[in-house]
């Protein structure tokens, strides 16, 4: 009897530790999401609330029901890394994949320092919404109404997006991305070495209402052969190196209407 209890204890300890990898990653899969308790404030089911700074890693795909967020990062939960580890999070066509608090006018606010990498977020109304210093790297963001909405200090590198806009407002660096059938908004920052295609509208890149945006070595075109333009904004945009923009080569920056 004593040995049986010991054996069960050993197995229970093994199961418990399965949620915490040896390198202190917090491991997440569908079952753990449904159980809750991934951080102290995380209720069972979705969204997965990441209320504590740390390193979170997916160890399986996540399927999120309609009308709820996939993950939610509350106020004060600064310094979170989410490594998708090659797995995918799929929504029900609504809500937000990775969400965080907004201010009274709907701008993402209050939380800073989020890293998201190495996976896929698809089929939400918005893929990632975050305030300050987001790093989004080696992700696929597909078929979300909008793919990225981040406020300031973001670094967006080596991603593939399709079917939605990328809004990266202030002090933004976007490099080496594919933005297919979408558009990019950068209020200030640098846009370099990207491929962008537009679905129908001719404005592929919007920039510079508060500060300038520099851009270089981007290939920007409409997949149906129509013209594409860059909306210069009121603060202006400027080519660093040459870009290719369909019939306008070098790219034609069109100042915004006052």
């Amino acid at each position: 009897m004593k040995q049986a209890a010991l054996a069960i204890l050993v197995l229970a300890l093994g199961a418990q530790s399965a949620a915490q990898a040896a390198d202190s990653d917090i491991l997440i899969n569908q079952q753990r999401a449904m159980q809750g308790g991934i951080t102290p404030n995380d209720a069972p089911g979705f969204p997965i609330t990441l209320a504590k700074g740390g390193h979170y890693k997916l160890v399986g795909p996540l399927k999120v029901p309609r009308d709820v967020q996939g993950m939610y990062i509350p106020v004060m939960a600064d310094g979170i890394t989410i490594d998708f580890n090659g797995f995918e999070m799929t929504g029900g066509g609504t809500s937000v994949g990775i969400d965080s608090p907004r201010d009274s006018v709907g701008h993402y606010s209050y939380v800073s320092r989020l890293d998201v990498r190495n996976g896929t977020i698809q089929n939400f109304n918005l893929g990632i919404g975050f305030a300050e210093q987001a790093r989004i790297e080696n992700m696929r963001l597909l078929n979300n109404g909008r793919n990225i909405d981040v406020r300031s200090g973001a670094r967006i590198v080596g991603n593939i997006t399709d079917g939605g806009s990328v809004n990266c407002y202030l002090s933004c660096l976007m490099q080496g991305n594919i933005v297919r059938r979408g558009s990019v908004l950068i209020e200030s920052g640098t846009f370099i070495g990207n491929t962008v295609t537009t679905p129908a509208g001719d404005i592929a890149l919007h920039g510079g209402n508060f500060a300038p945006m520099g851009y270089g070595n981007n290939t920007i075109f409409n997949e149906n052969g129509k013209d594409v333009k860059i909306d210069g904004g009121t603060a202006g945009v400027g080519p660093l190196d040459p870009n290719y923009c369909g019939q306008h080569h070098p790219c034609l920056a069109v100042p915004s209407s006052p």
Partner: protein
Amino acid sequence: MRSIGRTFTVAFVAMSPWLAGAALAADGEILIDQQRALNGAITPGDEPGFPITISRSGRYKLVGSLAVPGSKDGFEITANGVTLDLNGYEVTGTDGKRGINSPLDAKGQPTSKRLTVMNGRIAGFNVAILTGDYAIVDNMRASGDGNNPIQVGDASRLSNSTLGKIKCGVACLVQGNSMGSVTMSGGTVLGNFMYGALGTVISGSTNGPVGYANNTIQSSEKTKFGENVHPMSPNCIGPKCE
């Protein structure tokens, strides 16, 4: 004594599912080596031997090199959303076959999407990689004897790799590679070294322009560019870096 034996039996039975899943690493990876390939059942529908059929989305990692016997493909990827980390190992095969293959639809296009292949080598096949849209090929050495040993679909990114000739769909990004020629229906070719390039080195399509910049294109003869190809920043082209 009988009690102890029963205890161990209970414990063993309780642990047996974990033991059976020993190829599943703690972080959700499915581990693959030659023996597991020969055993089969890496995913549902995977027969013993090659090709290794991957029918489920997820993360797969090599823990040993794979020697694929003649007249067989290495991998048959039928699922979307597969990450294949070669983990520094290599997959070798024979001419006429494919290292990583996808089923084709009625139009002859690969059906598997969102494949990531990284961190290893694929050699000896006719086609090293054939896959559909949103592919990522990163930190690979992959070549083949066919006309287009690397074939990926729309919105694919190929980076930091040593690659043979590349054929990519719409809206691709090819960056930081040492490679042969590239054909795509629009996209960007940036910061690559293109070795021994003969004939047409970069090609676009009527509605799919290709911008290229900061590439070194080494060639013993006059370099030719295909349809709808446009220089952005300077490139070093030909035997005298024109």
